[in-house]
């Protein structure tokens, strides 16, 4: 009996010794690993999910911050563009005026429109230059698009322009094709009426109307506008003209010298086709 017990102890002891191996803890470690593998897998997945959610939240926050930054930058740029728009417009107008000034062989002066009283009765445009620039009344005022009016009154540092569409304004004009002359009288709102045109004249809508130079305010050939409507009157034609110059949006103007010569090289002589296309007529 005791031999069997001793043998059993020997065998079991050696077996345990063999089973434990060089690193006895590895069995417990492997057992614990095996038992905890499901929970480790769950924890790993949970950690991965949290990490992904954190990354997504961070990217979302970054995107929102970038969006806010871009929105602020866009608003700033819009504000800047709005602030610079008048300056750009003025610069563009100045460039166009400079080009026009080089085309006309006259001593032209330029001025800036600082105020507009056109909505009021007998209103006009106020320029920032007056007698200081040697301006005198009845000097012609024009822009690259066409004539604007004439100087009505001149003070020391300012001058008032009587626009072409004012009821009390008149300009000597002629029709481009027929060369028939008449007197342009303002109707307001960028429209004017040509008077003293004979019923025998043939006038078509879309025809260009130029200055005739007979009033000694504008030289011959400056663009005034385009014929918008022609009706037969009792004695004369009723020709309505749409003025070419944008009187409500003029910021810089050129001033002709007083009593200019009748004939100068006109920069406004545009081809008739182009004029018709511009007016949208067939």
């Amino acid at each position, binding site marked *: 009996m005791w031999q069997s017990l001793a043998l059993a102890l020997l065998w079991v002891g*050696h077996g345990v010794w063999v089973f434990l191996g060089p690193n006895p803890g590895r069995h417990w470690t492997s057992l614990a690993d095996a038992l905890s593998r499901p929970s480790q897998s769950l924890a790993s997945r949970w950690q991965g999910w949290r990490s992904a959610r954190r990354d997504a939240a961070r990217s979302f926050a970054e995107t929102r911050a970038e969006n806010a930054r871009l929105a602020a930058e866009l608003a700033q740029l819009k504000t800047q563009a709005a602030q610079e728009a008048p300056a750009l417009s003025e610069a563009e107008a100045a460039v166009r005026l400079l080009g026009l000034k080089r085309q006309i062989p006259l001593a032209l002066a330029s001025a800036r429109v600082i105020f507009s009283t056109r909505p009021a009765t007998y209103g006009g445009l106020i320029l920032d230059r007056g007698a200081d620039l040697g301006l005198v009344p009845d000097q012609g005022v024009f822009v690259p698009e066409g004539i604007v009016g004439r100087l009505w009154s001149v003070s020391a540092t300012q001058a008032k322009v009587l626009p072409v569409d004012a009821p009390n304004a008149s300009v000597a004009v002629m029709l481009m094709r027929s060369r028939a002359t008449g007197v342009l009288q303002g109707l307001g709102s960028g429209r004017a009426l040509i008077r003293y045109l004979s019923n025998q004249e043939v006038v078509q809508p879309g025809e260009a109307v130029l200055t005739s130079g007979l009033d000694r305010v504008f030289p011959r050939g400056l663009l005034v506008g385009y014929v918008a409507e022609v009706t037969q009157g009792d004695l004369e034609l009723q020709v309505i003209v749409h003025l070419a110059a944008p009187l409500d949006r003029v910021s810089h103007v050129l001033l002709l010298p007083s009593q200019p010569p009748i004939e100068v090289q006109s920069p406004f002589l545009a081809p008739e086709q182009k004029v018709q296309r511009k007016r949208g007529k067939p």
Partner: protein
Amino acid sequence: MRLPAPSLLRQNLLCASALGLLFLSAPFPQVQAVLHALLVLALAPRSEAPLVGALWALAAGWAVEGTLRLLPHLGGTAWADLTLVLFASWMAGRWPLEGLKGWLLRLAGLSVLHFLVVHAAVALAAGPHPWGWGWLWTLLSVPLWGWLSWRLLHAGSATGRR
């Protein structure tokens, strides 16, 4: 016809001699493997005194591993030897020897089993290890050391001679 068991003194002397040779043959692993199998499978098992055989087997296993100086954790061979000697003792009691042929066959089978159990136990105790070719030498030389052990254990008895 059942053979009488050798005397305990003779068996212990033979085991001691084999153990000594086991130490001396440490520089020759193939020879040591054969002596190891001889001691564990042929000389040590004794059905009437399994504890003695177990001690000899343990000594053989520890001697082999100690002289091998190769494994990081010893004891696997000793445990396998203990297991095999107990199994062989049980076989000796269960199926008593009747002749040299049966003895050689039994030793061949036990050699294969011993080889497998030893390497399994060593793998369990020390991890992966080189198997070597000692098992082949042992198996090939079964007739030699089996006959030798037969002669040594049963010499002098009438039935021990062929």
